[in-house]
């Protein structure tokens, strides 16, 4: 049993286990369910994630309100027809994150990770990593347990809700979960996983939640695209041996306090930020 990052690391080190193994054991203890059943449920999650992050790549999926759509497809075509600046990996990762966001905004099926608004980041991160390193589905499932462990710690000690913590609590936490998952997939230590998670949150600390018309569409989809890039680069930094000066638990605490001190107008109410720009207000009047 662990309540925070430090306790998680202690268990990993004492038992010489990876994060996903500790998280899986905790889930078995907590629910009394056998390992196969828990892994199968996670496999269902993975299957939905693969479908949602692929679905909008080759067709234009338009959101319920019509505010967003077709962006995943645009990026995919851009990769196919151009020499991109950031390379194929970063671009396909963004396309996959946009795909899930578009599926979500068009009333398609997704896995909240940790929320529906941030659901594009984790699937894209692990699928893109698994593709590059030719990793198996079982390894991807393992990585989802790593990610879940990070998410549980944040949920328990802070928040994963945009209404309470702003976008940093949704897309920031999703990126932290994804970064840790990638590092563990690629053989990094539990410490390196937590550094990757810390870096991801540090990078977007204070990010507000200011959706146009209150809908999970714009800027959510962009923040999923940038969120997966955040996860990938944070993972690379941690795998390079770079550490976050501030330990994970303190980063989470800082995120929580920043979230609480954000005004309500910047926490999912659509009363501040981009939502109340002239164009934001015009768009709202158009779609609602």
């Amino acid at each position: 049993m662990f309540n925070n990052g430090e306790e998680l690391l202690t268990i990993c080190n004492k038992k010489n286990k990876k994060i996903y193994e500790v998280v899986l054991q905790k889930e078995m203890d907590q629910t009394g369910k056998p390992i196969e059943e828990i892994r199968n449920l996670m496999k269902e999650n993975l299957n939905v994630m693969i479908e949602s992050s692929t679905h909008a790549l080759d067709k234009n999926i338009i959101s319920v309100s019509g505010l967003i759509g077709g962006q995943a497809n645009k990026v995919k075509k851009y990769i196919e027809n151009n020499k991109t600046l950031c390379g194929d990996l970063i671009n396909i990762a963004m396309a996959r994150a946009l795909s899930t966001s578009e599926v979500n905004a068009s009333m398609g099926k997704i896995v909240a990770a940790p929320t529906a608004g941030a659901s594009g980041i984790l699937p894209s991160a692990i699928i893109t990593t698994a593709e590059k390193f030719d990793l198996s589905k079982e390894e991807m499932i393992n990585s989802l347990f790593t990610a879940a462990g990070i998410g549980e710690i944040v949920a328990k000690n802070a928040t994963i809700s945009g209404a309470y913590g702003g976008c940093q609590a949704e897309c920031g936490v999703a990126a932290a979960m994804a970064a840790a998952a990638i590092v563990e997939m690629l053989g990094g230590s539990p410490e390196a996983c937590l550094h990757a998670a810390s870096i991801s949150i540090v990078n977007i600390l204070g990010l507000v939640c200011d959706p146009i018309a209150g809908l999970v569409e714009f800027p959510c989809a962009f923040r999923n695209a940038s969120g997966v890039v955040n996860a990938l680069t944070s993972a690379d930094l941690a795998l390079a041996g770079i550490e976050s000066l501030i330990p994970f638990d303190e980063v989470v605490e800082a995120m929580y306090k920043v979230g609480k001190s954000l005004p309500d107008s910047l926490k999912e109410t659509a009363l501040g930020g981009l939502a109340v720009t002239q164009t934001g207000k015009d768009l709202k009047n158009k779609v609602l």
Partner: protein
Amino acid sequence: MKEYGVFDVLGPIMIGPSSSHTAGAARLGKIAKQIVGEDFVKATFLLHGSFAKTYKGHGTDKALVAGILGMDPSDERIKYSLEIAEKKGIVIQFHETDLGYEHPNSVKIIFENKEGDTFYIIGSSIGGGSILITDIDGTKVEFTGNLPTLILKYDDRKGSVSRISTILSSNSINIATMKVSREGKTATMVLEADSKINETVLKEISNIEHIFYIKAVNPIDKR
């Protein structure tokens, strides 16, 4: 501190775009349908707070209707629920309203049967796809539907609670929580159990002579 499991942060599998405005709305509708139990020909939704302001963009309307048609929050037919209801001949109406004291994402659902009798449920979507039922046709309640839930109304008499709990324990059903309230001579009990409450148990309890309303709500789509 609340304990979290892996599927609290990776899940639910749901139809987007919003866990509170879409998945929670579908769950709310489905639980309301279970409470009503019988067939209905019309459903009127009085939307409150954020539900009233953003229901079209979040597909809250489609999700609520999908729920009362019995669909789960992960059902891909949610998108088409309004058409499906129309095909089934169920009249659906939406009104923006102010329910007063309720949580920002709340709805009052008024069901009407062939005979024109009505029955209403008020509930809220409280975040992450979780919900709270707060009013069953005029009786204040508070339950989430995460556990098998038994709702009873009866003429308040001595020994009722003990008779009900004896039936449950003799069927190996453990009681997790129990709330009893009284208005006039009518007592309302909301009881949450650790395991499913089946038809046999329901029948046995409904044989207690002064119970005039009994309904079991079993959890949906929660892992």
